[in-house]
């Protein structure tokens, strides 16, 4: 069983060692909140009200009882400590009563290993982890062995999507909203010409990302368009075509940035001469089809197999934690009942600090 409460999803799932998902319970606070109201991450307080019932529901769906489990895995960080604590205490309580092995899972490791729940992918593989709070390129060398090649020096890519969606009045979460709006753009090339956006760090060495400048550029682009449009006082006054075109331009810009940085990472990864080279994309942003297609093209060009888990396993869920638990249990990597929680928990603590040379105070 895997329990995930580190962000705004309360999720519990039960998976088996032979890759069957017996239950997949997920309760998203996002769906119930109007954006601009409650800050979604903070709706995490709801974890406490739901988690025990979610566990019961997961057991019911799978048709098993607690003593049947081989172990309980739970996200122990990184994330909002309050939410993480609720999941961890619940897991520890269940393990105490039924004497089950406990595994404290790094949320990012959950994302990193999910692909092995659905496909046979051998270590080492190159992982692009893109979500609301993270944007990293890692070589996954094994369970618990990660080498970070690059990370964002400011914002995560999901944050850029959310900001853009908000600026364009498209609602929350921003990723699907921007993707939906961009789908209405008939001529993507023209859109990009009409609404050009900067490509921070692109063409430079290294695998780090920067999205803060892009965020600012989107704001300027939107403001400028409002000024230029006769009769438009604000964003809702803009023609739908313009909004679609701006979304399309933004999405392609992000795709270019990801591909450029991932391209450098592929070169670095191939130096290690992996037996079955693969590029894996994970995290909520990996649900975006345009980004997926661009990255798939990049992988193909470089002779890498491209793998992305299905969308329901890309966003935060319990199955990824359960699976990380399976991988760890197999190696005998269980945790003592007093294991701590971590608000910050890098996968590769030895990675060099991302360069900030380009940044002003």
């Amino acid at each position: 069983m895997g329990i995930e409460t580190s962000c705004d999803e309360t999720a519990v799932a039960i998976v088996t060692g032979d890759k069957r998902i017996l239950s997949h319970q997920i309760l998203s606070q996002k769906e119930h909140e109007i954006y601009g109201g409650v800050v979604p991450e903070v709706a995490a307080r709801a974890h406490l009200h739901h988690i025990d019932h979610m566990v019961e529901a997961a057991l019911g769906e799978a048709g098993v009882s607690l003593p049947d489990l081989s172990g309980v895995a739970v996200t122990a960080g990184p994330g909002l400590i309050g939410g993480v604590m609720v999941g961890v205490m619940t897991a520890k309580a269940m393990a105490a009563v039924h004497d089950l092995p406990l595994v404290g899972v790094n949320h990012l490791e959950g994302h990193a290993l999910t692909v092995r729940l659905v496909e046979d992918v051998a270590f080492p593989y190159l992982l692009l982890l893109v979500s609301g709070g993270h944007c990293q390129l890692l070589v996954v060398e094994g369970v618990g062995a990660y080498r970070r090649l690059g990370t964002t020096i400011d914002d995560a890519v999901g944050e850029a999507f959310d900001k853009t969606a908000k600026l364009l009045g498209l609602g929350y979460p921003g990723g699907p909203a921007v993707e939906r709006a961009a789908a209405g753009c008939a001529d993507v090339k023209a859109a990009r010409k009409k609404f050009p956006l900067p490509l921070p760090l692109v063409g430079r060495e290294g695998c780090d990302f920067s999205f803060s400048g892009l965020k600012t550029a989107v704001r300027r682009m939107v403001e400028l368009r409002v000024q230029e449009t006769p009769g438009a006082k604000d964003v809702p006054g803009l023609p739908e075509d313009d909004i679609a075109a701006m979304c399309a331009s933004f999405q392609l810009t992000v795709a270019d940035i990801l591909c450029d940085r991932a391209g450098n990472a592929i070169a670095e990864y191939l130096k290690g001469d992996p037996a079955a080279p693969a590029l894996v994309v994970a995290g909520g942003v990996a649900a975006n089809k345009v980004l997926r297609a661009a990255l798939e093209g990049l992988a193909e060009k470089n002779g890498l197999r491209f793998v992305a888990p299905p969308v329901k396993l890309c966003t935060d869920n319990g199955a990824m934690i359960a699976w990380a638990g399976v991988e760890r249990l197999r190696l005998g990597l269980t945790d003592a009942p007093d294991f701590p929680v971590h608000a910050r928990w890098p996968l590769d603590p030895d990675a060099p600090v991302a360069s900030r040379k380009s940044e002003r105070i």
Partner: protein
Amino acid sequence: MSLRTLRIKDEEDMRVLAVRLAQILKMGDVLALRGDLGAGKTSFTRSLVNALAPSEEEVPSPTFTLVQVYERQKPAIWHFDLYRIEEEQDILELGWEDAIRFGVTVVEWPERLGSLMPKDRLEIDIQFVPDSENERDVSFVPHGRWVTRRMTDE
């Protein structure tokens, strides 16, 4: 109440200031950071965190995560960005009580604290200098027991 304003030349100057302030911080201290977007609040915090870190570490903006905790420092440093917060209750959800009891707390957008605003705090206001890209005016406004504290070792 005393108020001091320092003219900061550039990022390095700001870093030195943060490092000096870091030396006197102790458990329970609260720094309230004010200043416009881009004035350098996160950059200031980064220097502060790194001044107390055993080795350099990343200090991302907490705008998305709302809070970042640096546990390698003793006491731990809690870096809050309350811009998106609308209810005081939500701040408590972020671990506010643990921060002010057991850590050093740095808060951006402290006005969101409302009734949670601690009596004892040092307010630091970072302002742009007109017609200058790199200069900043940094004002210190002590409240509560900060009034009688020496802020630097000069």
